[in-house]
């Protein structure tokens, strides 16, 4: 059952979504006009904090609906312009927290109007993307977020080559996504016996997801972005995982089995998870390590999303949040270290412990939180995804275990190489700033609190997982329901998308426009 917006909970959520998107948008506008002056960080942090609070309001509002999804917007038939369920009710605050942490920890020299403007506009676009399930909106917002990332990377000294690589992959991804979605709308498989164009559209969307998520063999932009782009840009572009969200909205969701596209995607994602973790083991610089680790963990999410069991999906959602927060933490600590001491190599022991002992402690804690330290959310996430995968397919479970083990070894190798070894100093030279300490402690606290008391989060995500997996495919039309006269006779292999695109013929023309 879908809760309409006329209810108090619905209104609450609608206002929440509006504020979540509008606050960073307005602040980005002010930053672009140069009206923030010296209070640029304060403006950006305030706007993102407002968005974060509003996203929490959305989560509370969704709880008030007893777990039913809330939707709004029939501009394009039944495509939901605003759609809130258990998944994005949890993910919106997550996106807000990541953005807020990045702005708080960003070194002073990174806080300049153009960067802040792009960061805020990117945050607004990401919030908007995570609040919608409409295919056309998803396509447009994909393009906006990718463009902002490309621009930020390109203007960074030494970032042109990474921007070029990113642009090549993202253009391909956008083209596949746009064409695939259009083909699906133009030729919904349920209206013709062959549905060849629709099926091809589904495959194109799957390829787009692979490109945007950095799945083997389309993964090379991922470590390159971390190496060439500012840390804020790399984290903001990858940690929310817009491609995973798109996959959930467009490809996952099936009453009669798993979409073939997603099953194939999952196999590539499993290879990526193991390959990324293995690459992380031999990286020669810290940023390369973070890129490879992020690639592996993000692929684990996609691998879990293909599951037939709620447990697997739930595990994927938990990995999404736990690895996202942990890698954000590692990235922020790295950024803080780099701002004090320049680029960090992993070829030899760097001996930075006594130089920055607090950062060493935070790096270790985030590293442990990324690899499944008991008491952190990643321990729960690993448990769920490993159990779910092994229940579902033995090889998948074993590959997930292999990826987890390799990520653990790579993370400890990285920590020992950065902080271990002979040191040139015998007392702390680079302390940690209060805003850095507060932000990192908050991230760690979230990971530990959710790890020790995961019940509420797991329950919320379970509802989302069950809804995504078990919502019945569109039913054959009732005689008295003319707009649904073209409902499918046989389920299409991507019924999640089918549900979203189950629109009257007259509306399809608008969609295509």
């Amino acid at each position, binding site marked *: 059952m879908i809760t309409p917006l006329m209810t108090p909970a619905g209104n609450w959520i609608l206002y929440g979504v509006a504020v979540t998107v509008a606050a960073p948008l307005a602040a980005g506008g002010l930053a672009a006009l140069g009206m923030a002056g010296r209070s640029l960080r304060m403006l950006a942090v305030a706007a993102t904090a407002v968005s974060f609070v509003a996203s929490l309001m959305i989560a509370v509002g969704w709880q008030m609906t007893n777990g039913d999804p809330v939707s709004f917007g029939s501009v394009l038939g039944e495509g939901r312009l605003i759609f809130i369920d258990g998944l994005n009710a949890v993910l919106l605050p997550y996106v807000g927290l990541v953005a807020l942490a990045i702005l708080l920890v960003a070194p002073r020299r990174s806080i300049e109007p153009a960067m802040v403007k792009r960061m805020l506009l990117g945050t607004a676009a990401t919030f908007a993307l995570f609040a919608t399930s409409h295919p056309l909106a998803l396509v447009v917002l994909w393009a906006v977020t990718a463009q902002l990332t490309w621009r930020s990377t390109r203007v960074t000294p030494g970032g*042109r*080559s990474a921007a*070029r*690589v990113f642009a090549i992959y993202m253009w391909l991804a956008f083209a596949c996504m746009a064409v695939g979605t259009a083909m699906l709308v133009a030729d919904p498989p349920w209206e013709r016996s062959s549905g060849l164009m629709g099926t091809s559209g589904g495959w194109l969307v799957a390829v787009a997801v692979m490109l945007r998520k950095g799945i083997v063999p389309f993964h*090379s932009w991922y470590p*390159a972005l971390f190496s*060439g782009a500012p840390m804020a840009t790399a984290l903001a572009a990858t940690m929310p995982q817009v491609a995973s969200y798109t996959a959930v909205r467009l490809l996952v969701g099936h009453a009669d089995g798993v979409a073939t596209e997603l099953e194939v995607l999952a196999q590539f994602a499993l290879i990526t998870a193991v*390959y990324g973790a*293995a*690459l992380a*083991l*031999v*990286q*020669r610089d810290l940023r390369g390590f973070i890129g490879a680790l992020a690639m592996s963990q993000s692929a684990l999410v996609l691998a879990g999303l293909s599951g037939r*069991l*709620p*447990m697997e999906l*739930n595990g994927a959602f938990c990995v999404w949040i736990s690895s996202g927060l942990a890698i954000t933490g590692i990235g922020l600590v790295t950024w803080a270290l780099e701002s004090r001491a320049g*680029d960090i190599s992993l070829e030899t*022991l760097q*001996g930075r*412990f*006594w130089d920055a002992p*607090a950062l060493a*402690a935070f790096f270790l804690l985030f590293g*442990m939180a990324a690899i*499944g*330290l*008991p*008491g952190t959310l990643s*321990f*729960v996430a690993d*448990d*769920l995804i*490993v*159990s779910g995968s*092994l*229940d579902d397919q033995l090889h998948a*479970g*074993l590959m997930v*275990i*292999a990826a*987890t*083990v390799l990520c*653990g*070894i790579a993370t*400890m*190798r990285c920590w*020992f190489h950065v*902080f*271990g*070894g*002979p040191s040139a100093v015998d007392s702390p030279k680079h302390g*940690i700033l209060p805003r850095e*300490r507060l932000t990192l*402690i908050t991230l*760690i606290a979230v990971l530990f609190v959710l790890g020790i008391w995961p*019940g509420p989060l*797991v329950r919320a995500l*379970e509802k989302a997982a069950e809804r995504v997996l078990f919502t019945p495919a569109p039913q054959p039309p009732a005689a008295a329901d003319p707009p649904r006269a073209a409902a499918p006779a046989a389920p299409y292999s991507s019924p999640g998308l089918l549900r979203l695109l189950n629109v009257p013929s007259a509306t399809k023309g608008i969609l295509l426009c």
Partner: protein
Amino acid sequence: MSSHDLISLLVIAQLAAPLATLATIGLPALAGRPLGETATTRLVGIGFAAGFLSGVAALVILGGRSFRPEIVHLATWFAVGHHEATINLVADALSVPYVCFSSGLCWLVNAFAGKYLHREPGFTRFFILLALFGAGMNLMVLADSIDVLFAGWECLGISSALLIGFFHERTNAVKAALRAFTTYRICDVGILTASVVVHRAVGSGDFDRLFGVDWPNGTCLVSATTATVVSLLLVFATLGKTAQVPFSGWLPRAMEGPTPSSAIFYGALSIHAGAYVLLRCEALLEQAPLARASLILIGTGTAIHASLVGRVQTDLKSVLAYASMTQASLILVEIGLGWRVIPLVHVIGHAILRSLQILRSPSALHDRYELAAALGGHPGSGNSWPLSMMPKTWQDHLYRVALDRGYEEMAVSRLVVGPIVRLLDRAAAAEKAWITWLSGESAGDRR
């Protein structure tokens, strides 16, 4: 208050005490305000003492009712569909004496370390890791489900690796820590997979659904196939922490850590963690002759290897490390033979003796001079008679083999690690070349 409530309370105290200590000293350190040395040592000591005393009280109560086991259901951690992770603890004839022993030993080592590490940079870090180890140990020992056991097991591994690398400015210490962690992590595959197999077989990770908790008279409640698979996976998991061939190379290097942690980890508790897990799951092993045979085989091989290699070591800590390895191997053989109480007694006896030896090792020369003075001459070790009866050429050959640590590390390095690292290096180089080509820059341009 019934005896059930009382035991539940005491079991919770055994777990909560070191955890509370960890939070009490860890949080101020994270906030940039670490406690002083005296406060740190006292707080950690109080935590271990509380664990020990509540263990003794529980032991007395359990003894009064003929060691009838008591399961304490703390909470359901999380549940999704049929998958349920419960926090169940068990108080029985195995767990309660063991927790008394481990908490007591940690308490003593804490007192020793407070003096030994006085004014050492990283003093607070050592005690945070010691508290994490104590909490993990108690969690593992009291676990009545494989999920909880794995949580404790992971805490042991992480604290162990970090303590080996405690003197992080020493290159060898860092390398040794990384080696130990890698070994642990590879062997964790066993326990992780075993956990999933158990969940799949009985719907939860609870031991009472797997084999009951009436130690040492547990009854296997799953099929022989499941029991064999789980047992083999657990045997694999224990090979790392117990330093069995071919995973033994990390143990002599682990002595790079501070002496108190070496004593408690590699002389006493961590090295026997695997044996404890196997003893806990003895009912499964009973149904798995293949797993028991592999234990006997690996244990015997490692005992011979460690005994020979230990004889040619030139530093005391390495000698003690190989002696620990020998005894741990023999304990695994005893478990493989189906014995239950003897391995437990062996574990406790060996742990106490070896930790004392390691703690005394910095004063070994002094001890030796005292002994020589008391005896009126040098106490010679001499060759043990089976070796001295061998032909001289055999002795020389054996000496060379022992000096090269049985070629074990060379074989692992050349046949397994080397090829994998070379392959990964090539993959990374190919990635870099592809990116360079794609970005249209020459190889020298990249940042």
